[in-house]
Structures are given as structure tokens and as C-alpha cells.
């Protein structure tokens, strides 16, 4: 539930769902997100869900902080609201040249490549949010022994399709982009389709993701 609402600048509400980052907190964020969309409240420009926050930006020409805050505070979330979310299988190739940071991860995590892969692949991931760049999913949670920091010096260019890990999270770079996550592999699957305006993102908040290892041959011959 929303613990506190404050303002982020003069044209956005900052809804805080508490300090804990877990599936339960995030599922409330997503419930609010879905509900607000469904209510089609006028003059909202954007609703941005993340782990434990919901930011709602609005058209300051037509509504102000106090008016929108009142509307949001009145919203009731039905505890049984169960959204239909998907389970998705994402192919990943962890061979050269796609697994950019295995050496670093072996040292940092004190695990062998085989153990790292096993840990990574034997896990179901929950999509907390999408963003930063178009379609990038933020997935969690990695096992405790798989958690490490970002690169000390971020890469200027992370290749498109790269799958990275940092802290308790994994992500997929939907475009070539600067970035500091530890890259363990790459997916040939199209995760963001800018020509599909109705559903550009393959993975959406609340979805479950499973990674399936493929060989370099399978990667190169992959058909969408």
C-alpha cells in the first residue's frame, strides 16, 4: 500500500510504498499502476512504476498536486485483483563473444563459470519494472551468492541483447547503450519492437522470465 505521497517537482506525484524491495511490495505498485490506467484519470501524462515507488506526472496546465493527490488517495485496491501475467522463456547464449564479464564474475563471486551459469539458469525471475531505455526489463531476484556491484568503470557501449547482472537484479539491454552491469550473455530475441505500438515490450512488470541456454550456432540461426 502507499505509505506516503509527496511531490517530485511541480508536475509529479511521488508515491512511496515503503523501503522493502520484494515481490509483494512491487505487486502493490503494479496493482496501483493497472488501476490508475484503468480509471483513465484525466490529465495524467505518465505513470512510472518501479520496485517500490510509483511516480505520476501530470499536465500542470489542467491539474495540480493537491487535486491529483486527493484523487489518488481515494483509490481502493482490491486485494484479490489478480492480473493475468505471462511466463516467458528467453534464449541466452553465454559463449564468447557474448559473455563479456565471466572472468570478472568468477573472481568477484568466487564461483566457477559452470556454477554461475547453473545458478543463473535455475531460477525464475520476476519483472519489477521496465525502463531506463525502451523495453529494458529489471528482473529479480538473484541468489545471495550471485550478487555483485556494477563495473567500476561503466562501458561506453554495451552490445544490444546483452544480459547483465548487478546486486539482486538482472536486465536485458534492448539497445546498444552505455551501461555498467556485468554481462553474462546475450539474447537474439527481440525484446523491444518499436513498430508494435500496442505491445512494444515483450516483458512487462509482473511477468515471469526463465532463461534457456542456447549454443552460438543456435544464436546465429535464431528465428524470431
Amino acid at each position: 500500500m502507499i505509505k506516503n505521497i509527496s511531490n517530485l517537482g511541480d508536475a509529479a506525484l511521488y508515491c512511496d510504498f515503503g523501503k522493502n524491495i520484494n515481490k509483494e511490495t512491487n505487486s502493490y505498485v503494479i496493482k496501483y499502476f493497472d488501476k490508475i490506467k484503468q480509471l483513465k484519470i484525466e490529465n495524467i501524462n505518465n505513470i512510472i512504476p518501479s520496485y517500490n515507488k510509483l511516480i505520476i506526472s501530470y499536465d500542470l496546465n489542467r491539474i495540480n498536486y493537491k487535486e491529483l493527490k486527493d484523487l489518488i488517495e481515494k483509490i481502493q485496491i482490491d486485494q484479490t485483483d489478480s492480473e493475468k501475467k505471462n511466463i516467458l522463456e528467453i534464449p541466452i547464449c553465454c559463449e564468447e563473444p557474448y559473455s563479456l564479464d565471466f572472468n570478472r564474475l568468477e573472481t568477484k563471486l568466487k564461483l566457477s563459470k559452470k556454477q554461475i551459469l547453473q545458478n543463473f539458469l535455475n531460477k525464475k525471475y520476476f519483472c519489477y519494472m521496465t525502463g531506463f531505455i525502451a523495453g529494458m526489463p529489471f528482473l529479480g531476484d538473484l541468489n545471495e551468492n550471485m550478487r555483485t556491484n556494477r563495473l567500476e568503470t561503466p562501458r561506453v557501449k554495451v552490445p544490444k541483447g546483452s544480459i547483465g547482472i548487478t546486486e539482486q537484479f538482472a536486465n536485458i539491454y534492448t539497445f546498444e547503450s552505455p551501461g555498467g552491469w556485468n554481462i553474462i550473455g546475450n539474447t537474439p530475441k527481440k525484446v523491444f519492437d518499436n513498430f508494435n505500438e500496442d505491445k512494444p515490450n515483450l516483458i512487462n512488470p509482473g511477468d515471469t522470465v526463465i532463461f534457456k541456454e542456447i549454443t552460438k550456432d543456435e544464436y546465429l540461426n535464431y528465428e524470431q
Partner: protein
Amino acid sequence: MSNNYFKVIRSGINSTFQDKGRSNLYHLGIPFSGAMDNRNYLLANKLVKNDLNHPALEFAYQGPLLKYIGEKINIVITGDVSFTIKSKISEINGNCYETYEINDGDEIDILSTNKSVYGYLSFSGKFDVSYQWGSCSTNTKSHIGANNGKKLFDNQIIKISEINKDFTQKKINYFNSKIEKIRVIKGTNFDYFSEIAISNFFKKEFKVSKLSDRMGMRLEGVNLENINNSNIKSEGLIKGVIQVPGDGNPIIMLSDHGTIGGYPKIAVIISADYDRIVQFPSGSKIKFQQVELSDAETLFKMYEMETQNLLNQI
């Protein structure tokens, strides 16, 4: 479809098609984009009698050199821009906010913006551009919008889909006002910073770094000391947010910004000052001033009223 077009002889530094931008897509990772300086964008369209949401050509610093091929049109350039118009018989230095007739073979050479960053070119008609999610705004990072999501490139053709022939020359006297201080509201992580950092934030000048673009403006100056944590759990961003990463140098989120970020937010620029902050060129100095939410709301109303009055004059 008409056979009229511009040929891009020189594309300029960062020339893109922009309109009012696209909303309700942040949750997918797609930011607003749209014209950086909304007022100058609107004035450009109004001066050539276009719908206010028509695509305009936005340029930064050095703009494009365009050769026009086709039947007569009228153009206007807004902002603070030096440009020339070359025809078969003459070459003139153009004035911003004044419309000019352009004929087959004429060239528009947008030399530079003056002590500012962005300018706009509109003409009496419509560029033939593609739309995504209801907007033509080009977002080069996600390859979305007009021109296949790319900035203009040398030797390309810009097609024109329609020309409005019902036209009278227009001109307004307008000077882009400079403000001494950019006004901000406290950010959600204001208390992550030391008292000295806060005091410096409002007292010292910050220099706009060369590493600034449509996504963000990086500032250099006194490093702002974080006494709590230089990372937060990633969360949504909006334009105007000032994030401070571990190195203590603030970054202002601009129209093409990443939709999620993990650095503490020290402050947010008020909506009334957004059109002006984007116009600070690299190397110039910025000072911040704190205001309350209610002041920001009033200042925005006044700014919008001023914009409407300008539009109504045309």
C-alpha cells in the same frame, strides 16, 4: 504527395524533427521527447499558420544548410539564431520571428544559435515524416520517430507532404528573456546531502559541461557531498530532475532522458523554467534558487499566460 523537398547539404550538429512529444509511455521506457524549448517551437508553427502540433525541425548550435526544390513556400526560424537565405539574385541575413518567402533553388543556411542551444525551423506546410505513438518526435537513443529515429544526415532529402498556399507574411518582436537564476523545488533525496553541499548548491555557480545533449545536461562545479548513499534503488524520473551521482556533479534530466535512474535527486527544475534551462549552452554558468511548490505553480501559470499572449499576437 507533392514533389517539393529540401535537400540537406549540411546536416548540422544535432538536427531532428520534433513536435509536442508523446505521453503515457514512460512505463515502457519511452520518454516524452518533443521540442526542447516548447515556446519557441509553438511560435514557429504559429508564425507560418500551421497547427501548433506540426513537426518542426529542431537544431542545436550549428543548424543545417538546406536547398529547397519546389513551388513557393514560406519559412520562419525561432530562437536566437544567425542564418542566411540565398536566392539566385540575393543573399540576406535573416531575422528570427519573421517569415520569408522561399523559391525553387533557394538555400537556407542556419549558421549558429547565439548564446543559446536550440532553434526551430517551420514552413507553411508539413514535412513528410512518420509518426510513432502519435508523435513524430525523433528519439535517437531508441530509434523512435521521424527519419527512422535518426538525426538529419548529409545529402538526405526531406520530403514535403503538403503546402499551405493561403499565406501572409508575419513578424513579431520577441526577445528570449534570460533569467538570472533557475528556480528549483527540493528533490526527494534533498536530505542525502551535507549542509555544506546544500549551501553550495544554492550559492555557487555551475558550469554547463560539453557532455550535454537532449538527454541530459551535466554540470561542473563544486562537488556536492553526499552523506547518506550515492545510490538509491532505481526509480522513475521526469524531465527537470537533478540527479547527483557519486562524483558529486549534478546531471539535469532533459526531454530524451532515461525513464529510470538510481542516483539521488537533489532538486527538480520548476516547469516555468524548463524552456530556459535547455537554452544554456555548454560553458555557460547556472545558479539555482529554491522556491516552494505553490510559487512554482503560480510561476508556471504566468509563463503559460505569457506564451498564450504571444501566440495570440500572431
